[in-house]
């Protein structure tokens, strides 16, 4: 494989004195890999090793009336059967380690289950086969409950409550809203005055990371009351702290050994197998192995969650995008795991690598009776990038503009202000688009080939615009059927505010921050790059040049209308 380095680009920003970057270097662990000696968690042999298998819910949503383990405990080779009562601290949320969100998920459920495959008991036996046999003998009395699998249906009044910690079926952001807000400029006014308003809806299904090595851990007693845990985890200290919390055990009594991971891709951060194996070890005094089989990896291994995105763009006929509004739904599945945080990442990414002067976004983390979702490569970004770039193609098609030229025209330049109040630096989208077009034999206009990330940015484009804020979507309103528009206020930009970290509106009591209570005119970037056109941009098909305010032209694509 040959790699071409385009050192002609940004040559004056680089010293080219890097030692390793740009040169192939062998992995330090590759000799172990090609000799089969790399020590994965399951490559440690223990005398008297016990094997753990879980009793899992066959239902998507059900109340647990009772769990009878007596028959299973009498099965040959069974050392112990665990239920939630054995877990010292049986409620957790992964991001509790950084004080984000409330504990919402048991290690072994005792009261109800909210997704198919949720564990309610675990058998520890001297072989996997015997553990499986005993699992079949655990008697659980289920009372099935109505379930919900669609994010928007889950938010409707009357939908089944999936997760008792969040009875509105959505994560609570900042103790105030049922969604993460981003407000930048005045999207409504900009949409009203745009030549075209182009809408789209984009969805991404859950995606399983499918590492070749499944999740697993082996825990064994050490001396001095310590326990060693060999684990497949991608996040050793995360797993250690999570196990410490669930087991109510000081972390200095846990000796975690990892670092050799048979593929993870985000699917090995949820820290479930480690506390399970450790608990089994603590209660039996023997080494215990808890290894998911492939079916478990696929059924209960947390995937990248499903996402649904609604995009509304205000576009001028020359291709400038003057407003973009997002409504996003992350399907967290039954428990929070990392979805709430993925939304924070997504919010910081909006509106994609483009300078759009008016942006707003509401993103909801929604609970459904599906497998809990977690990280996967680029999580929080991949789904919305799919939506953004699909929508860019739709916009280009709708206004009759070349899709690469549309991207170059709107691409952010060095010095531009991003909606999350950070200045864009080291931009390179324009150059990437130019090179990609060239490599693909795709012709773009000379004016677009002449553009550069380092020019025409900053200045007025570095300003934070007067921003219209609202207090819509407070916790519980949506489920109560109250979704009307509330009061709008406009916040004037504060000089030197370019390091503000949040797009959330001021809280009550911050009234002094509100200024210009009447809506300010929608902010337009000062120095919009203007491609020299020898002819007028193609007229928009079937759309008035100036649509009536608030009247959207139509959904841009049939695909955009498709819903489950």
């Amino acid at each position, binding site marked *: 494989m040959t790699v071409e380095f385009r050192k002609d680009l940004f040559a004056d920003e680089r010293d080219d004195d890097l030692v390793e970057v740009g040169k*192939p270097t062998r992995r330090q662990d590759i000799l172990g*890999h*090609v*000799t*089969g000696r790399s020590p994965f968690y399951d490559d440690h*042999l223990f005398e008297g090793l016990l094997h753990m298998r879980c009793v899992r819910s066959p239902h998507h949503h059900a109340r647990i009336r009772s769990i009878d383990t007596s028959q299973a405990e009498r099965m040959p080779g069974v050392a112990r059967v665990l239920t939630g009562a054995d877990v010292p601290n049986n409620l957790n949320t992964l991001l509790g380690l950084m004080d984000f969100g409330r504990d919402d998920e048991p290690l072994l459920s005792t009261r109800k289950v909210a997704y198919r495959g949720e564990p309610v008991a675990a058998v520890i036996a001297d072989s996997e*086969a015997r553990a499986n046999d005993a699992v079949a003998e655990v008697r659980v009395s289920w009372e099935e409950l109505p379930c919900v699998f669609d994010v928007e249906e889950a938010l409707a009044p009357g939908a089944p409550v999936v997760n008792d910690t969040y009875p509105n079926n959505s994560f609570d952001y900042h103790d105030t809203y049922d969604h993460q807000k981003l407000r930048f400029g005045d999207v409504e006014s900009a949409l009203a005055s745009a030549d075209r308003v182009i809408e789209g809806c984009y969805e991404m299904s859950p995606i399983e990371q499918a590492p*070749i*090595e499944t999740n697993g851990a082996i825990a064994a007693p050490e001396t001095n009351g310590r326990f060693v845990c060999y684990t497949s985890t991608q996040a050793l200290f995360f797993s250690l702290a999570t196990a410490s919390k669930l087991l109510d055990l000081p972390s200095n009594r846990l000796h975690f050994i990892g670092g050799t*991971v048979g593929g993870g891709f985000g699917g090995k951060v949820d820290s479930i197998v480690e506390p399970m194996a450790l608990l089994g070890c603590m209660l039996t005094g023997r080494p215990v192995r808890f290894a998911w089989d492939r079916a478990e990896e696929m059924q209960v291994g947390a995937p990248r969650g499903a996402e649904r995105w609604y995009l509304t763009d205000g576009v001028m006929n020359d291709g400038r995008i003057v407003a973009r509004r997002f409504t996003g739904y992350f399907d967290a599945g039954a428990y929070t795991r990392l979805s709430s945080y993925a939304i924070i990442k997504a919010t910081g990414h909006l509106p994609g690598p483009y300078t759009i002067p008016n942006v707003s976004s509401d993103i909801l983390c929604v609970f459904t009776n599906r497998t809990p979702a977690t990280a996967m490569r680029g999580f929080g970004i991949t789904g919305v990038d799919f939506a953004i770039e699909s929508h860019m193609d739709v916009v280009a098609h709708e206004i009759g503009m070349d899709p690469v030229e549309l991207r170059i025209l709107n691409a952010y330049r060095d010095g531009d202000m991003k909606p999350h109040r950070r200045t864009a630096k080291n931009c390179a989208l324009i150059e990437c688009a130019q090179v990609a077009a060239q490599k693909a034999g795709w012709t773009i206009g000379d004016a677009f080939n002449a553009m550069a990330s380092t020019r025409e940015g900053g200045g007025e484009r570095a300003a934070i615009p007067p921003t219209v804020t609202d207090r819509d979507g407070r916790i519980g309103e949506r489920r109560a059927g109250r979704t009307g528009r509330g009061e709008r206020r406009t916040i004037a930009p504060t000089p030197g505010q370019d390091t503000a970290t949040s797009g959330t509106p001021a809280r009550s009591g911050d009234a002094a921050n509100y200024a210009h209570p009447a809506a300010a005119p929608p902010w337009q970037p000062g120095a919009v790059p203007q491609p020299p056109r020898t002819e007028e941009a193609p007229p928009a098909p079937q759309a008035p040049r100036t649509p009536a305010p608030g009247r959207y032209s139509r959904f841009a694509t049939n695909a955009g209308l498709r819903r489950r």
Partner: protein
Amino acid sequence: MARKPLQFRLNGAEKAVFVEDGANLLDVLRRGVGDLTAKRGCAQGGCGACTVLIDGVPGLSCLTLAETVEGRSVATAGGLPGDGSHPLQEAFMAHFAAQCGFCTPGMLMAATALLESTPHPDRNQVVHALSGNICRCTGYEPIIAAVLDVAGEGGGGRS
């Protein structure tokens, strides 16, 4: 639980072990005789991480009833040189053909079987030979390149 005696050759060495009824060869290799090089990726025959050679023929040890290898020869990646000096090992290292490394022992066994029956395969033959082995990291191209490298040069890695 019934246990049966089993004798077979593993990488040239005689092994004798008691196995449980219904045990698969993968578990016997890993827990019975302590060869941990074959990996359990699925235990369904879908991933190839447990690929070994049985009398020189590639086999999925997870789907092989252990007692069926009575008196036969089994080869695993554990039989490859521990210093990585086998041409395939050198080529895998030179071509970055391993990332997480979990599929690598199975890939090496599948490639070994190919090169023993077809010393100079073309790309299509390499692709077919590796078609039962899943890799989630590399995208396969570095692995194919490594095998072709050995095939083309008659041995020896490129560095």
